[in-house]
C-alpha cells in the first residue's frame, strides 16, 4: 500500500488518541481549520474540541501550558505551525520540558511531542526557512526525531507520543503530500518504530550517504545516479538525531570507508559537523577520504527562485561530492 506522510502522521495521532485518553492536541488552527497543513484533519470531529484545542497565536503561552499539562500527566501533542515560530517558545522547550526531569531527580516528567514542519519549504524567504535540527539535537533531555517517509512518520510518531519525555518531531512541509509505500507491519496500530535507530535505505559498499528528512530522498536519487557510474552507495536514514545512532554510521563507514553527510540546514555546527566529528572518533582509521558535508549555503534564505535553488543542496551536488570522496 501507499500512504502520504500527511496521512501517516494523522493516523498515528488518531490511533494514539484512541489508545490513551491523556493524549490531546493543541496548536494554532489544529481544530476547526483542520491544521494549516491539514495534518490534524478530522481529529476535532472525531475527538471533540476538548482534545483538539485551537490556541491563540501565542507560542510561548501554549508551549508553557503544555509543559504544565505534561507535568500533571497529560500527553500533549503540540503543533507549531512551523518550527520557525517555536523560537518564541524555545525557552520552555529547553528550560522547562527538557531539564525538569533531571532537576527534579526524576520525579516530574514532561511527556510532550512538539511537532511541525521544519526547514526550508519553497518561496517563503529567510525568516521561515530555517532548519532547527542541530539546535535541538544539542539539548540533553530531549529526543529529536526526523522522519523521512510514511513508514517513518507513523512508527516514529507513535513512539514519540508514547515516550514519557519530551520529543521534538521535525517534519518537512514538502513531504506532507508525498506518497510512499508502507509495510503492513507499520499499518498495525501497535507498531512503533524505535527511537535512536537509523535505517539503511539502500545497502552499498563504496560510499555512505547519510541524511535525514527530505534529503534522504535526494540521497536515494543520488545513489541511483551513482550506480549508473559504477559507484555503489549505501544510504542511511538517520530517523533520530538524539539519540544519534553512532553505531550504524560507524559500521557503514567501516564497510565503505567514505562518507558524505547531507542536510539542508546551515553548515556551522550543523548535523553534518556532528557526524564528521563522530566518525572521526569512532572510525578514523577506516576513513579513506575526509568526511564531506553537503549543506545549505551559509546565508539567510533568499526569496528569488533562482537564488533559492542555489542555496540548497541538490542531487547533482551529492553525486559530485560522492564521486570526489571516491576519488573518481
Amino acid at each position, binding site marked *: 500500500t501507499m500512504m502520504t506522510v500527511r496521512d501517516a502522521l494523522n493516523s498515528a495521532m488518531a490511533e494514539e488518541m484512541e489508545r490513551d485518553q491523556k493524549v490531546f492536541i493543541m496548536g494554532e488552527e489544529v481544530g476547526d481549520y483542520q491544521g494549516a497543513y491539514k495534518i490534524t484533519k478530522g481529529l476535532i470531529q472525531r475527538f471533540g474540541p476538548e482534545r483538539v484545542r485551537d490556541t*491563540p497565536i501565542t507560542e510561548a503561552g501554549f508551549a508553557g501550558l503544555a509543559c504544565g499539562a505534561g507535568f500533571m500527566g497529560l500527553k500533549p501533542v503540540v503543533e507549531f505551525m512551523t518550527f520557525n515560530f517555536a523560537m518564541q517558545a524555545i525557552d520552555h522547550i529547553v528550560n522547562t520540558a527538557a531539564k525538569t526531569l533531571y532537576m527534579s531527580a526524576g520525579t516530574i516528567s514532561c511527556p510532550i511531542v512538539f511537532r511541525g514542519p521544519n526547514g526550508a*519549504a519553497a518561496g517563503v524567504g529567510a525568516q521561515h526557512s530555517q532548519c532547527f535540527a542541530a539546535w535541538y539535537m544539542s539539548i540533553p533531555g530531549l529526543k529529536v526525531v526526523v522522519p523521512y517517509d510514511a513508514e517513518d512518520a507513523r512508527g516514529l510518531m507513535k513512539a514519540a507520543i508514547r515516550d514519557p519525555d519530551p520529543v521534538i518531531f521535525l517534519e518537512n512541509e514538502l513531504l506532507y503530500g508525498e506518497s510512499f509505500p508502507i509495510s503492513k507491519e507499520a499499518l498495525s496500530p501497535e507498531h512503533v518504530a524505535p527511537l535512536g535507530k537509523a535505517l539503511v535505505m539502500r545497502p552499498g559498499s563504496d560510499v555512505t550517504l547519510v541524511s535525514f528528512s527530505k534529503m534522504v530522498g535526494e540521497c536515494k536519487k543520488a545513489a541511483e545516479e551513482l550506480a549508473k557510474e559504477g559507484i555503489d552507495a549505501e544510504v542511511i536514514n538517520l530517523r533520530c538525531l538524539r539519540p544519534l545512532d553512532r553505531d550504524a554510521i560507524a559500521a557503514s563507514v567501516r564497510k565503505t570507508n567514505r562518507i558524505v553527510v547531507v542536510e539542508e540546514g546551515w553548515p556551522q555546527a550543523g548535523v553534518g559537523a556532528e557526524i564528521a566529528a563522530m566518525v572521526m572518533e569512532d572510525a578514523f582509521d577506516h576513513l579513506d577520504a575526509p568526511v564531506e558535508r553537503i549543506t545549505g549555503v551559509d546565508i539567510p534564505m533568499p526569496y528569488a527562485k533562482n537564488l533559492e535553488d542555489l542555496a540548497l543542496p541538490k542531487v547533482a551536488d551529492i553525486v559530485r561530492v560522492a564521486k570526489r570522496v571516491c576519488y573518481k
Partner: protein
Amino acid sequence: MMIDVPIPFVAHRIDPPSQTVETSKAEIVDMFTQSYLMRRLEIAADVLYKGKFIRGFCHLYDGQARSISHWSPYDREAVCVGMEAALNKDDAIVTSYRDHCTHLGRGGTPLEVMAELMGRIDGASKGMGGSMHMYKRDAHFFGGNGIVGAQASSDWSPYDRTPIGAGLAFAMQYEKKPNVAVAMYGDGAANQGQLFEALNIAALWDLPLIYVCENNHYGMGTAIAKSAKSPEYFKRGDYVPGLKVDGMDALAVKQAIKFAKEHCVSGKGPIVLEMDTYRYHGHSMSDPGSTYRTRDEITGIRQERDPVERLRKLIVEHELLDTAEIKAIEKAQRKIVDEAVAAGKASPEPPVENLMKNMNQIMDNVVVRGVDSEARTHLTEAYGVK
C-alpha cells in the same frame, strides 16, 4: 472643506477627536486615486499568483484561497491612504505581510511591488525579501516584518513588529525628532505577549508610538471570539489610551492618526488604535463567514462600506469631479498597474552573485561556505574593498 465621518470614534482613557474632519478636494481625489491604484494592484497580483508568476504553495490544500485573502486588502486601502494623509515620511512604519499598499503609501512604485512579488531585480528588495518583505528605508518604512509568500502559514511573524515599532519610537525620542512610529498588527497577533512587553516600556518611557491593530475579525481560520477573551483591541493597552476607528473610512483613519500623532509627539506616550475593518470576504476557503449571511447582504454591505467606493461616493456627492474625470483617473491607474506588471515580468531575476551579498557590511575575514567544502567565497574578494 469639512466632512463628518459617519461612525463615531470610541475612546478609552482619552477624549476622542472630533467626527468632523478637515480635508480638501485635492486630498480626497488623491485618496481615491491612491486607493484605486492599490485595489487594482492587488487584483493584478492575484491574477499573477494564479498564473504562477508569483511563488506560492500551490500544493497546499488552501494555498490559493489564502493567497487571495492575504493579498486582497479590499478592506485596507482606507487604512493606508488615511494613515499617509496624517503622517510624513520622517514618521516610521513597520507593518505586517500586507505590505504592498504600505509600500505604495510610503512612495514606493508599483513596479517595485510587482517585481518583488515575482522575485525580480527591480523589486523593492531586489528579489531577496519577497512579497512580504518590502522596505523603503528613505521613507522610514521598515518592512513587512515577517514573512513572504502567499501561503498558509509562513507569510509573516505576527509577533515581532510591535517591539520593533517601540524601537523606532525610541530612536525618534533619542534623536529628539518630532515624529512618531507606527506599528501595525492584526487581531490574531494582538494576543502575543511581546506586544504587552513593548507597550509597557513605551508607556514607561513616553515613547511616541502608535499601535495600529487592524481588526478584520479573523486570524487565519480563527474568529476573534476564539482567540481573545477581550476582543476590544483599543482597550487592550489597559492603562494606555486607545481609540476605535472605522477602518473602512479613509477620513476617519486620517483623523485618528493625526490625533494619535499629536498625542505622541506632545510627549504623552503611546496610544492604541483599533481599525475596525468589518471583514466582508472570507479569510480563506474555510472561513465560515459566508455561511451566516447571504451573498446579497455581503455585497450590499460592501457597496456601502468598501473604502474605494466610499471615496468615489464622496467625490460624487460633493461634486468634486465629474464622471469623466473619475473614469480618467481609473484608466490612468489601471494603465500604471498594467505597465508595472509588464515591467515586472520583464525584469530579470537577481544575478547569481547576489546570493551572498548583504549578509555582512564589514566583510573582513568572512568566508561563506557553499553547499560543499570546496565552494568558498571570500566576501571581501567577491564584493568588497579591503
